[in-house]
C-alpha cells in the first residue's frame, strides 16, 4: 500500500526541488551552466522512469539519486582524456615530498603547524576559501574519488566501479589527494 506522500507529483517538482538539486550539484561541480543542465536532465530522466518509482523513498531522495548518477558521469568524463596531464604534474610535485630511499619526509616539504589545529577550524572563513581553491587544483580523478568518499561517504567498491579504478589505486589516490591538499594549505596559509 503506497501512502499519498510517497507518490510522485511532477507538477510541483521544480518548485519543490529545483533549488535544492541545484545547490547540491554546485557543491560538487563548480559550474553554474553545467549544474543547470544536470538539474534539467535529472527531471527529464525522472519522468521517463517514473513508473519505476516504488514509493520506498521520498520524492526528493529519489530525484537526488538520479542526479548523483549524472554527477558521477561528469566526474568520469572529466577524469579521462586531457586531464591526465594535470595528474602527471601533481604526481611529479609529490616526488619531492619524501626521500626516495627511506620514504622519510624531506625537510623542504615536512608538515609545519598551521597554528589552528587546536582551534575550531570551521570558523576560519579565510582558511576555508584557501581549502576550496586547493581542492579545485586537484586532478579531476583525485577530486572525484576524494569527493565521493569524503562528501558522500560512498562505498569504496561503488567508487571503484563507477570511476574504474582498482582497490589498490583507490587508496593511492585518497592518499595523494590528501597529501596535495595539505601541502597546498601549508603553502598558502602559513
Amino acid at each position, binding site marked *: 500500500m503506497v501512502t499519498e506522500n510517497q507518490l510522485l507529483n*511532477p507538477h510541483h517538482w521544480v518548485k519543490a526541488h*529545483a533549488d535544492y538539486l541545484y545547490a547540491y550539484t554546485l557543491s560538487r561541480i563548480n559550474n553554474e551552466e553545467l549544474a543547470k543542465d544536470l538539474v534539467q536532465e535529472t527531471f527529464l530522466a525522472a519522468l521517463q522512469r517514473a513508473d519505476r518509482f516504488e514509493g520506498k523513498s521520498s520524492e526528493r531522495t529519489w530525484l537526488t539519486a538520479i542526479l548523483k548518477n549524472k554527477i558521477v558521469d561528469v566526474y568520469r568524463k572529466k577524469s579521462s582524456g586531457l586531464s591526465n596531464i594535470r595528474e602527471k604534474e601533481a604526481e611529479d610535485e609529490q616526488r619531492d615530498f619524501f626521500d626516495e630511499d627511506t*620514504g*622519510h619526509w624531506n625537510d623542504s616539504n615536512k*608538515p609545519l603547524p598551521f597554528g589552528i*589545529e587546536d582551534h575550531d*577550524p570551521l570558523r576560519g572563513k579565510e582558511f*576555508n576559501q584557501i581549502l576550496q581553491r586547493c581542492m579545485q587544483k586537484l586532478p579531476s580523478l583525485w577530486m572525484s574519488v576524494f569527493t565521493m568518499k569524503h562528501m558522500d561517504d560512498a562505498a569504496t567498491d561503488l567508487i571503484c566501479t563507477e570511476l574504474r579504478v582498482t582497490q589498490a589505486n583507490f587508496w593511492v589516490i585518497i592518499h595523494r589527494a590528501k597529501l596535495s*591538499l*595539505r601541502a597546498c594549505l601549508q603553502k598558502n596559509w602559513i
Partner: protein
Amino acid sequence: MNHLKKVIYNCKQATLLIEKKQLTKLSFRESIELRIHLAGCSMCKLYNKQSHMISTMVFQLFHDSIQQASTAKLDDDFKKELQDRIENELNK
C-alpha cells in the same frame, strides 16, 4: 630488524595508513606498524592531526553549501521554462 627500521622511517607509508585508517579498518599488522611509527615521528603526528582536520572541513564545506542554497538559487525564468517542459512531457 631491517623491516622494523623501514617502518620507523617510512613516512610515506605511514601517511598512507593514516588516510586508510580514517576510512576503513586497518589490518592488525598495519595498525601495529602505524602505532610504532607515530610513537617516534612528530612530523607524522602533526600530519595525522592536520589530515583529520582537513577531512572534517571538507565534509563540513559540502554540507554547508547545501544549507546555503539561498545563495545559489535558480532564476525564475529558468524554473518556469523547466516546469513548462515537464508539463509538455507529461501531456505527450
